[in-house]
């Protein structure tokens, strides 16, 4: 009893203040969440348009498709169909995420219409170390993914980064961040492929 009384005497202010601060953050989050969401969607579309240059619009093919993160957590993502001017499907775009070196890395991944090739990725969110891990945003790393087969990619510490194959050359000094991107892509491409095949949007033989 004395211990509880002592604990409350010492920490009541911290408990009260934390409660009010929690409410304050919740209110700010509730007020601005829609705007933040809109900004993220806008950014998603901008990145997807840069990667799938033929696309003139994006339609949601599967809304809230359930996929598993690398840690086994179930998350919902929207799989978007990229439509060209002649209404043909020119690819698919979706966001995926995983753990990086410093924090979560969130990327927009694009694949071709037949899910055979990766058309590139763009970074939506990354707090990787400036000058090291944040080089995953730079073209010299991202360009390695342009046109690689949409299958299991491997990370190599050395090699020629200009050769387009399933071997991705890591950024010097940022192996963990480089590996995180490769893992995220490997993990999501497989699941998205299954989702699209199950819905009959992509045939199994492709």
């Amino acid at each position, binding site marked *: 009893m004395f211990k509880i009384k002592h604990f409350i005497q010492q920490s009541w202010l911290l408990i009260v*203040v934390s409660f009010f601060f929690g409410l304050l*953050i919740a209110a700010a989050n509730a007020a*601005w969440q829609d705007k933040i969401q809109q900004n993220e969607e806008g950014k998603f579309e901008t990145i997807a348009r840069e990667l799938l240059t033929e696309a003139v619009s994006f339609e949601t093919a599967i809304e809230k498709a359930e996929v598993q993160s690398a840690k086994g957590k179930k998350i919902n993502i929207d799989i978007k169909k990229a439509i060209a001017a002649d209404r043909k499907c020119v690819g698919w775009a979706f966001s995926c995420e995983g753990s990086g070196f*410093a924090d979560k890395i969130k990327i927009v991944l694009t694949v071709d219409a037949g899910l055979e090739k990766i058309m590139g990725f763009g970074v939506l969110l990354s707090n990787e170390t400036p000058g090291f891990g944040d080089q995953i945003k730079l073209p010299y790393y991202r360009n390695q993914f342009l046109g690689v087969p949409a299958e299991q990619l491997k990370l190599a510490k050395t090699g020629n980064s200009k050769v387009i194959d399933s071997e991705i050359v890591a950024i010097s000094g940022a192996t963990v961040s480089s590996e995180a991107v490769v893992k995220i892509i490997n993990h999501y491409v497989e699941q998205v492929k299954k989702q699209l095949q199950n819905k009959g949007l992509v045939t199994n033989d492709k």
Partner: protein
Amino acid sequence: MTNNSKAEAGIYKETLIRGLWRENPVFRLLLGMCPTLAVTIAVKPALTMGLSVVFVLVCSNIVVSLIRNLLKPHLRILMFTVTIATFVTIADLFLKAFVPEMSARLGPYVPLIIVNCIIICRAETCASKNSLGISIIDALGMGAGFTVTLCVLASIREILSTGAIFEIPILNLQSQGGWFVPWAAMSMPVGAFITLGLMLGLVNAVTKKQAKG
């Protein structure tokens, strides 16, 4: 004006000016070096960082000053950290909602305001010992000093690395038929260290001259 109110106005003025020069957080106290070196590549991110720090500094000083008589000495740092973290989270959400490009450009440096020594230093040395008025003025002075310093460093670096200020070209670049060759080093960390070092040297020289005079 009575003598008391005159003295009070004098204290407020002195507190405000202190942060701008005599106790400038960057040049005199050498606090907040991480954002000073990292975000001064251009004026826009430097100004955004400065204003975010002003917001957090003012809000945290208000809260700390209001609860100063209730603080337990051994829990005060914990209280300061909780307070600062709350306002940094709000500032981060605001930037994400209304200035998303700048939020993305500043990246992890906005959440890192939580560990900015200027804020915890002002909470400990000023807000936890002074009235609300003095705490707000101190936060404004220190925040303004930090923002102005960041903008000065960023202006020098932006002009020398791109020939522009606020992204508005002011020097004729050689690539466009002009005379100015941009100094690539100024956009790199080495440029931040050199500019800060030179500015610190200049401020020290001016201070010594003032002391002699």
